[in-house]
């Protein structure tokens, strides 16, 4: 056997996938022979087994499990020479790596790739909807477009990109040399391209891609063509990745904080990811189970959702939303963390009401588990569940409101540096409030009876996930770009990106409130004449949003290749990740720093957060009083 096939890598992974395919054929034919089915070769069954097994063969071939196999067998493990740690060239990013910084960049770049794919699908959706009647695609393809659009952007963009950003900065922030389980971290990353590729490949499945929405309600999903299983199984891989990362974050945060870093000295981004990870570990298994049910119903003739045999159709929605409502917070809480970091640094003020900020995160986690059925007000479930869910849903706006007001108070009387990250943060504040307000409206059952499953919902979810989550993602990417790449981004292009996005985003999604209340249902390839003019406006604005993302892509690529070198602490931040070089050294710290104060003590004379070997790290000569033009902060 050639050496390349024995060593972990892409050659072995490819060969291994062929082997996996052969295994799927063998297992399917063998099982059918034993159970006496005819014919022996069944394409769907082979495909189903292949969807589950080939990814594992791929991961084994790539070497994601090599170390564990050796360790479990008791064979001498490769001594810790850190050969798989840190990137040596751009090629290192295409192999499993144990460095959380490499993994963070892998995560962010991969999820942005999926963002562009999902965005492209959105452009196709809007092209189809630009006028009533059929434009470019038939209704099956259309249903596939919005289903894959939502699934990619939720499971492979928003959730993992936050995990990626946190992967990069969180260990640095708490003064840890790496995550608690670096190999598990590498595996979590490599599950993502697997899941994403699977969802994209569904377009080539016989019968077309999955077309039942990202919610994949039974009984539509367990009678849909084979493409559905690319979602059903793909979500399992994305979910496993989520759970593994969350577990890793929790253990890292609990066991690896620098000396002196008590829970109430942690930056709020760490708090946010702590809360998010709790949600993921507890809730994500439910979406896995809901898809197991669908898979069992489809492949082995189970009757979970067959009412004729005693199954319960609504059970799917209860199980699904028990995950997918907390998932909304999984997609928002890390953004809250990013916003807290940026607002404090860019306003040069401590975060207002730090403890309340931390407690409100935990309150959202707890309340988040008690509101799932507000997605089911018109589902035909037991009517008595509705009112308690309305109350809890409304109450969850209270901790969210605390956060909004505290951020406003953080800005007030500060010294605001209105650069790109700050603009996106302020854009987030205003847009997320709109999304939150329509959310409170949707808690009110009588109104929801009218507007559920309309474009009002589409508007609401995009104000929360685009105006909310995506704005914080952009803010975070710009904010940590110097740290991650060692280069500065182009400020002019960044501001251009913000204003284009802000304007076109509103032009796209604000009118959807109107057509929704007027009675346009969502997920339709065709609509009544009365909605035609608004839809044309929306489509044109959507293309503008699409173009604005190209500005972002150009800025990122060009600045990464040839932007000016970044200082170690260009924002004069106090938190630990800015106290090391940009990008940080391979093991983050020469020695673990000691934390001696809060993370946001801006404006407090002589305040320090972390100390390296006895020398305090201050955020440059920051102070109160008349302005002078002091030199750049010392690194």
């Amino acid at each position, binding site marked *: 056997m050639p050496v390349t096939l024995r060593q972990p890598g892409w050659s072995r992974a490819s060969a291994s996938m062929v082997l996996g395919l052969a295994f799927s054929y063998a297992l399917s034919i063998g099982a059918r022979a034993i159970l006496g089915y005819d014919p022996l070769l069944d394409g769907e069954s082979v495909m189903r087994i292949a969807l589950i097994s080939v990814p594992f063969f791929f991961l084994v071939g790539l070497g994601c499990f090599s170390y564990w196999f050796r*360790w*479990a067998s*008791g064979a001498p493990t490769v001594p*810790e020479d*850190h050969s798989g740690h*840190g*990137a040596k*060239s751009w090629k290192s990013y295409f192999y499993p790596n144990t*460095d959380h*910084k490499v993994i963070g960049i892998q995560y962010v770049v991969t999820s942005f790739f999926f963002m562009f794919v999902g965005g492209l699908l959105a452009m196709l959706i809007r092209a189809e909807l630009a006028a009533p009647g059929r434009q470019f695609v038939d209704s099956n393809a259309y249903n596939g477009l919005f289903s894959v659009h939502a699934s990619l952007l939720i499971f492979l963009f928003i959730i993992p990109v936050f995990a990626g950003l946190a992967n990069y900065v969180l260990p640095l922030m708490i003064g*840890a*040399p*790496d995550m608690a*389980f670096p190999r*598990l971290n590498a595996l979590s990353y490599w599950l993502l391209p697997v899941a994403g590729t699977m969802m994209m490949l569904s377009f080539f499945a016989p019968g077309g891609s999955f077309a039942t929405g990202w919610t994949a309600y039974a009984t539509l999903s367990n009678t849909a063509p084979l493409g559905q299983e690319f979602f059903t199984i793909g979500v399992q891989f994305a979910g496993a990745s989520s*759970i593994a990362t969350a*577990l890793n974050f*929790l*253990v890292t945060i*609990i*066991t*690896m*904080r620098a*000396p002196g870093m008590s829970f109430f000295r942690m930056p709020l981004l760490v708090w946010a990811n702590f809360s998010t990870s709790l949600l993921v*570990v*507890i809730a*994500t*298994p*439910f979406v*896995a*189970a*809901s898809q197991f049910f669908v898979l*069992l*119903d489809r492949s082995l*003739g*189970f*009757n*979970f959702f067959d009412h004729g*045999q*005693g*199954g*319960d159709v609504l*059970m799917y929605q209860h*199980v699904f939303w*028990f995950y997918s409502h907390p998932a909304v917070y999984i997609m928002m809480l890390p953004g809250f963390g990013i916003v807290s970091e940026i607002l404090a640094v860019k306003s040069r003020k401590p975060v207002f009401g730090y403890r309340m900020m931390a407690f409100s995160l935990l309150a959202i986690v707890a309340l988040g588990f008690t509101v799932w059925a507000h997605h089911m007000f018109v589902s035909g479930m037991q009517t008595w569940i509705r009112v308690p869910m309305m109350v809890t849903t409304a109450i969850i706006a209270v901790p969210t409101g605390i956060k909004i007001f505290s951020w406003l108070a953080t800005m007030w009387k500060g010294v605001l540096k209105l650069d790109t990250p700050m603009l996106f943060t302020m854009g987030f504040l205003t847009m997320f409030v709109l999304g939150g307000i329509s959310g409170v409206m949707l808690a009110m059952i009588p109104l929801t009876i009218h507007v559920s499953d309309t474009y009002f919902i589409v508007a609401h979810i995009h104000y929360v996930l685009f105006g909310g989550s995506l704005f914080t993602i952009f803010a975070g990417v710009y904010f940590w770009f110097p740290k991650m*790449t*060692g280069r500065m981004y182009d400020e002019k292009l960044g501001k251009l990106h913000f204003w284009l996005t802000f304007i076109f985003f509103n032009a796209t999604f604000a009118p959807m409130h109107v057509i929704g209340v007027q009675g346009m249902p969502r997920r339709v390839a065709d609509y009544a004449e009365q909605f035609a003019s608004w839809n044309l406006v929306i489509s044109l604005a959507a293309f503008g949003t699409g173009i604005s993302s190209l500005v972002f892509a150009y800025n990122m690529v060009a600045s990464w*290749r040839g932007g000016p*070198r970044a200082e*170690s602490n260009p924002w004069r931040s106090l938190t630990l990740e800015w106290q090391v*070089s940009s*990008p*940080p*050294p*391979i*093991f*983050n*710290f*020469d020695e673990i720093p000691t934390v001696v104060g809060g993370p946001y003590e801006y404006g407090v004379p002589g305040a320090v957060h972390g100390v390296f070997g006895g020398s305090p790290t201050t955020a440059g000569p920051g102070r109160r009083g008349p302005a002078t033009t002091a030199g750049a902060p010392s*690194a």
Partner: protein
Amino acid sequence: MDAAVPLAGAHDTHHHGPPEANRSSRVDPQLLGMLLFIISEIMVFAAFFTAYFFIRIVGENEWPARGTELPVLVAGVNTAILLSSSLTLHWAQTSVKNGNRFGLKAGMFTTFLLGATFLLVQVNEYVHIGFSPADHAQGSVFYGLTGLHGAHVFIGLLLLGVVTVRSFRGHFSKEEHRGLEIPGIYWHFVDVMWIVVYTTIYII
């Protein structure tokens, strides 16, 4: 691109390894990780129990389905078999800590055998139970929950198999027996979960 090439700066000195991470908690990271993983596992079971709840309680379906019978007694004996495997595993774990190699080997071997027996009895039950998951929702729930648990037993057995072979090859010692501890926690979890499954499916 050059993301990991440290720039000339205050911290750019030669490294040969990471600095030792600070231990901010007395809890062992591996143990904590395993516990969190088990919380996740419990939630998977919880979702399947939700299906059970909706189909049996909310849907008011007969339990077990009309004309079928669950072998409570056989499954009860099987429960005893699985529970005793937890005891023998504990014996093996205590033995290795005391340096008793015979106890380790015998304990692991018995544990493995008991676990495999449980799985065989379960498969035998499937063959003779007289209904399939395709017959009715009760069957789906029965096969769903016991099958989910069986899959966990199977994975647990794979882990225990490796541990057993290793203990016969002379691996593990008084000082280093983590390779036995971590699968052990998992196996105990699988056993405890079975008590819940057995109670809800067979007894109530």
